[in-house]
Every structure is written in structure tokens, then in C-alpha cells.
């Protein structure tokens, strides 16, 4: 990581979050909107793990070698919790898309709108 002028993981996080917001705002197909949300969740999880990296650190397993420098373990716990929550949210969103398709026959966000005003 020494010779690279920028931090590639943080650039990847910024790119993923930017692409995800663009997808959520501009796509009309509901399944693509859910995919955009999944990319946003992945970007935020990548950010949480990357901020814990310490130069030359090893995996934070305590029986491995407690004398060397370890990467931070708490962001990894936060990321696991976030992944679990994202799985549940995604399952719920996709079930609702299936219901919208069943009732209106269309998964385009403009054509399947029922409520206006």
C-alpha cells in the first residue's frame, strides 16, 4: 500500500456510494432500485471494515499472536450486524416487489403507482 498515492479502498467506497445514489434516484425498474440499495449497503460495510485497518496488522484472533499489532475488531462486529440487517431488509423489499407485480402486472415505478397527490 506504500507506493499508491491514494487509499484505493476509500476511493472504492466513494465510488460505490455515488453509483448507488445515482441508481436509486434515476432507475424506474423496482428491482434495479433494490439492487442500488444493496450496492449502497455494500459500500457502507466496506467503509466500516477499511477504517479499522492498521498498517501491517494481523487478523484480530486472540489466540493467534497477541503480541503483534492487530486490525481493529469492533468495526468488524458492526459490519456483521449491518450485513444481517441488510439481508432482512432485502428479503422484505423483494417480497413487496413480488406483491406489487402480482397486483398491477408491472414493476415500473411510474406505471405501477396507485396513490397520487
Amino acid at each position: 500500500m506504500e507506493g499508491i498515492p491514494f487509499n484505493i479502498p476509500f476511493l472504492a467506497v466513494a465510488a460505490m456510494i455515488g453509483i448507488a445514489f445515482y441508481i436509486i434516484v434515476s432507475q424506474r425498474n423496482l428491482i434495479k432500485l433494490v439492487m442500488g440499495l444493496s450496492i449502497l449497503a455494500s459500500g457502507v460495510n466496506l467503509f466500516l471494515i477499511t477504517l479499522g485497518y492498521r498498517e501491517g496488522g494481523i487478523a484480530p484472533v486472540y489466540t493467534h499472536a497477541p503480541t503483534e499489532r492487530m486490525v481493529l475488531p469492533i468495526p468488524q462486529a458492526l459490519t456483521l450486524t449491518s450485513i444481517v440487517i441488510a439481508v432482512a431488509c432485502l428479503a422484505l423489499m423483494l417480497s413487496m416487489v413480488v406483491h406489487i407485480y402480482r397486483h398491477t402486472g408491472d414493476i415500473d415505478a411510474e406505471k405501477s403507482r396507485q396513490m397520487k397527490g
Partner: protein
Amino acid sequence: MMSKIVRTMSNFLILVVLVYGLYIIMHGHSTPGGGFQGGAVVASGVALLIVAFGSHSIHENLKEHHLSILKSTGLLIFIGLAFGGMARTFFYNFLVGSPIFGHIPPLGPNPGEMLSGGVIPLMDIGVSLNVAGGLSAILLVMALAITATEVEE
């Protein structure tokens, strides 16, 4: 329903997947892994069966309310153990030092002990029952719903 080769291999592979998932669950407190991860591996085994055999033939044997009972049992184990330490505080690790999973591992590099950690491996088992049941139920119900929607058109 896929071809005979896929069905026969998945009959064999499901056992391998289940053993792998159980390994991840039981060693969750000393190696990477734990309740959610192992439960998700078990649910992926169920996904293998659904893809190989078709959701209708799986649904004849594995009903949704069986999975609901599995989920509730796992969750009740979890919250029962959390209430168990109420003499001091909620979630207190009251099994450290006792013969059930209570061995205290030595410091320094060592291969790790399965029978340590107190309440944590038991909570892992509870969470994994819940997650395996829950994710399998999601996969089964959505597979049934999607084939029903295709039939209607």
C-alpha cells in the same frame, strides 16, 4: 426439478454442507464464524435442495410451520440464556467457570478450545437455529410465490 445427476449429487452434497455449517456454528467463539454465518451456510444447503428438486416437492415434506417452530425455539434459547444471568445483570455470562462450556482457555498462541466461552456458544446455537429456519423459510416461500406467479400468466 433438474436432471438425475444433479439430484443425486445434491443428495450427497447437502450432508457436506450441513457438517460445514455445524462446524462454523460450534467454533464461533474462537475462530471466525458464529451463529449467523453458520445458519446462513445451512440455509444455502436448503437453497441447493430447492434448486435441484423444485420447490413443490420440497414443500411436500418441509412445511412452513415446521420452520416457524424451529425459529421460535432458537430465539427462546437465546433470550432465555440472556435472562439467565439476571442475578447480576442482563446478558451476564453466568457459565464461566462451570463445567458446561465454562473452561477458561490459556493465553498465548494455542489451537483454541471449543468448550470455552460460557454462554456464548449456546447463544450461537440458538441464533443459528433461528437464522437457518428464517432464511430457509424466506427461500421456500419466495420460490413457491414465484412459480405461482409464472403459472398465472
